[in-house]
């Protein structure tokens, strides 16, 4: 379980996070929703200790993040983070060199699943393929938690579909996933849990099925209520 406890963050004078609290369980897909600039990426960065938080704490399976934790949690940012001049093979080798949890078999599987050519340079890949390669590098790790920042934004429909397929596949099974999006549409039925962010706080925190069952509302209905009401 990833526990985010009351974290605050300022950028200059702007208070981006004003005490955000939520949890993300293993085996569930938690979705951080909010309009752009609400601090979704900042939360993911904070979980990965890529940006300092002013207050609050973040625990991963009850512990603070340590260097070794990176073998058990991976973050797939919205843009690929390997050097453009590397080929896919080289970037896979790079990951393999440092991560004990790198699963080469799964990497090869993903390679064929996404139909990527391993000899291609990262810089020469299309947007969709870059996103897939990015996903590949994260998913080929045998980690407990996967964080994804806007995995669907700015890519073509077919790639979106392929990526969406990942969420229902064994690649995600039993892992804890946190994804961020500013547009729920496509993935409404893929997620377990929604964390609605607005103005630096968590507005609402719910399981999608529970809301549908108890209130007969879609996620968008809830969002509309929360943001407009």
């Amino acid at each position: 379980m990833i526990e985010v406890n009351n974290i605050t963050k300022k950028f200059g004078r702007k208070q981006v996070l004003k005490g955000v609290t939520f949890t993300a369980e293993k085996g569930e897909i938690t979705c951080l929703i909010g309009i752009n600039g609400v601090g979704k990426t900042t939360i993911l960065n904070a979980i990965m200790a890529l940006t300092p938080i002013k207050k609050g704490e973040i625990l991963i399976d009850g512990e603070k993040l340590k260097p070794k934790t990176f073998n058990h949690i991976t973050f797939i940012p919205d843009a690929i983070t390997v050097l453009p001049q590397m080929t896919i093979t080289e970037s896979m080798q790079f990951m393999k060199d440092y991560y004990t949890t790198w699963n080469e078999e799964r990497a090869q599987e993903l390679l064929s699943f996404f139909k990527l050519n391993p000899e291609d340079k990262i810089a020469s890949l299309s947007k969709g393929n870059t996103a897939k390669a990015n996903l590949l590098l994260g998913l080929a790790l045998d980690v407990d938690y996967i964080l994804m920042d806007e995995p669907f934004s700015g890519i073509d429909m077919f790639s979106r579909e392929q990526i969406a397929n990942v969420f229902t596949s064994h690649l995600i099974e039993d892992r804890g996933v946190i994804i961020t999006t500013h547009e729920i549409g496509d993935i409404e039925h893929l997620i377990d849990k929604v964390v609605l962010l607005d103005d630096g706080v968590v507005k609402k925190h719910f399981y999608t099925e529970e809301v549908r069952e108890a209130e007969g509302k879609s996620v968008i209905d809830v969002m509309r209520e929360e943001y407009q009401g």
Partner: protein
Amino acid sequence: MKINFNRREPVYVQVVRHFKQQIAMNMLEPGQEIPSRRELAGELKINPNTVQRAYKEMEEQGLIYTERNLPSKITRNEQVLQVVREELIMDAVDQFVTTVQSVQVPLDEIVTIIKEKYEQTNADKGEEDHD
């Protein structure tokens, strides 16, 4: 398998209903293996946990059964299957009646229209089969 999900209704409920329809329509035969939770999730592009929930619900209702580690199968229990069929018909009729009543059409007229429509649809189906 393709379902157009309603966003406001729990997905698992819709999945269960879908299975019931399939059973009632004999698309799924008694004793037939159903897809694994992951397969179905992938096919329907929904969360595997939701499928899990749906399967659990179906199991409780006796629609499917699981033996040891084998894949789940559609029940062979005729009684249950009968209930499903009836439930489905009743659901459809309920819905129909509610709609029709609001238009305030006499029952006789409705029955006639239903008859004609039913026969014509069957005839159309027959023609299609010939092609």
